């Protein structure tokens, strides 16, 4: 198994003043589905953005550490270059072009040079992953439902032929059944295209049942990581992410206790 993406001691600063993540280290193996878990403001999205690159308007940059893709340093590269290298991000919101039709949304992205035959084949494949979209070809992105929008976002991401697909908050604002369905499609996509996928999730339950490996972020730090078994079996995760309580009610003191214990994994 080769390391596809490795993030070392990543530190991101917004507006030259606000530090969003401090010293995050994580690595993604070829072909894995990796889940990044954490509560709001834990720095999940920032990490993804840092990997996929910032724009001038974001006024943010990687000040410390490194992001390496296939052993190649890519931090602080503009997004379009990163995309062309094979990393594609499906952002949390504003993930489709509202005034473009579905077809146009799929036509707009930069696709590496390929023969028309390949391109058609590719299109087929995408519509095969998301048959729904085929029906919506002429509808504009702004009028799609949440689920359809997510499909379109992933599909248009796939147009760029990523080796690594980053998905931010896939489950956000979607019905559990839809999320479940999308997750299964991801597994399918991974199998078909042999690509690696990183999903950022608040709801660990959803993420962990397809992820091979997971990282838990708190306040811009990695506090816990391990493969699915380790994480699902881990007490704190069960407690605070999967929401299963181990029988007897616990007092506030214990919560503090948990927080202290958590530092161990930091």
């Amino acid at each position, binding site marked *: 198994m080769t390391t596809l993406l490795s993030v070392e001691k990543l530190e991101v600063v917004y507006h030259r003043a606000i530090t969003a993540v401090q010293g995050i280290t994580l690595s993604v193996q070829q072909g894995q589905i990796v889940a990044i878990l954490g509560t709001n403001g834990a720095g999940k999205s920032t990490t993804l953005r840092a990997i996929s*690159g910032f724009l001038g308007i974001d006024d943010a940059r990687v000040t410390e550490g490194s992001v390496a893709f296939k052993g190649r340093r890519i931090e602080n590269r503009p997004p379009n270059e990163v995309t062309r290298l094979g990393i594609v991000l499906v952002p949390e919101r504003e993930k489709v072009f509202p005034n473009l039709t579905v077809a146009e949304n799929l036509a707009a992205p930069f696709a590496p040079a390929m023969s028309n035959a390949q391109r058609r084949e590719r299109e087929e494949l995408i519509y095969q992953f998301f048959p729904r979209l085929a029906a919506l070809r002429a509808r504009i992105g702004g009028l799609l439902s949440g689920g359809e929008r997510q499909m379109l976002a992933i599909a248009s991401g796939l147009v760029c032929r990523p080796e690594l697909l980053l998905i931010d908050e896939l489950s956000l604002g979607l019905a559990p059944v839809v999320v479940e369905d999308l997750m299964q499609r991801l597994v399918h996509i991974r199998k078909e295209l042999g690509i690696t996928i990183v999903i950022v999730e608040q709801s660990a339950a959803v993420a962990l049942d397809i992820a091979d490996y997971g990282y838990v972020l708190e306040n811009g730090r990695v506090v816990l990581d391990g493969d699915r078994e380790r994480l699902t079996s881990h007490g704190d995760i069960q407690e605070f992410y999967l929401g299963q309580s181990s029988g007897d009610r616990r007092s506030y003191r214990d919560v503090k206790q948990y927080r202290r214990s958590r530092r161990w994994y930091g």
Partner: protein
Amino acid sequence: MQLTVNIVVLASIYALIACGYVLIYRVSRVLNLAHGELMMLGAYLLLATANSFSGNPAVAIAVAVALSLTVGVMVYVFLMRKMTGEMVLAAVLTTVALGILLRGVMVLIWSAQQQYPGQALGFSNPAIALPGGGRISTFAAILVLMTALTYAALFVFLRFGTWGVRMRAAGQNPLLAAQRGINLHAVYALAWGLSTLTGSIAGMLIALDSGLTNTMVIIGLKAFPAALVGGLDSLVGALAGALIIAAAEVLSIQYIDPLLSDVVPFLVLIAMLVVRPWGLFGTREELDRV
């Protein structure tokens, strides 16, 4: 009859200029107030090529067109690129400054004399009698056709051309566009190039039709209410706006007071801004872009 012809001619002049404003605004949310100057520059470029390639006008025109396209691209690459990510207003003021600079430079190079590129190219400009008693000068006619052509081409390009779709995409959400592998700088440069190109064509045709002085800038400024009335981010709007402004102007000349023709466009503009600020075909959210 003649009245309609006049309206159509003036409208296509304004429309051809206005689409330049729209192209750039639509893609980069920047209002290019140097458009008038760039248009005039195009006309002067034609004059220059006309003098150096006198004899074969085709070459002269081709070269001038090519040059104007490059000028537009260069303006982005060397100037406006630095303004991406800055306040939109700052960018707009930069275009104003650019305009001032260009004006100065053009006077330096070509003096303030009245010039006739048409003559230099050995073109004559006979009037054509239209069925129904109207008359139109050759180059005015060409200009009308050119405008129609340009708009048709732009519509096709933006709807079906890959880069056209990408331009629209970049206009709607630059970040996502970049994340989809679209090179924003390329798109913006393209927009500037096209806008300058169309503007220059307008400038050249006006100059061929009725000579060239350094007051042409103000025509560019008068075309810009057309763009706003129609809605800054809509080509259809630009077309409609141009028609409205032109009609208002010509009719006020004919029936009210010729002097008004100077302010009428802006009166229409004010009215529109009060009633429907985002213009006839503009999208409403544009308003909040500051």
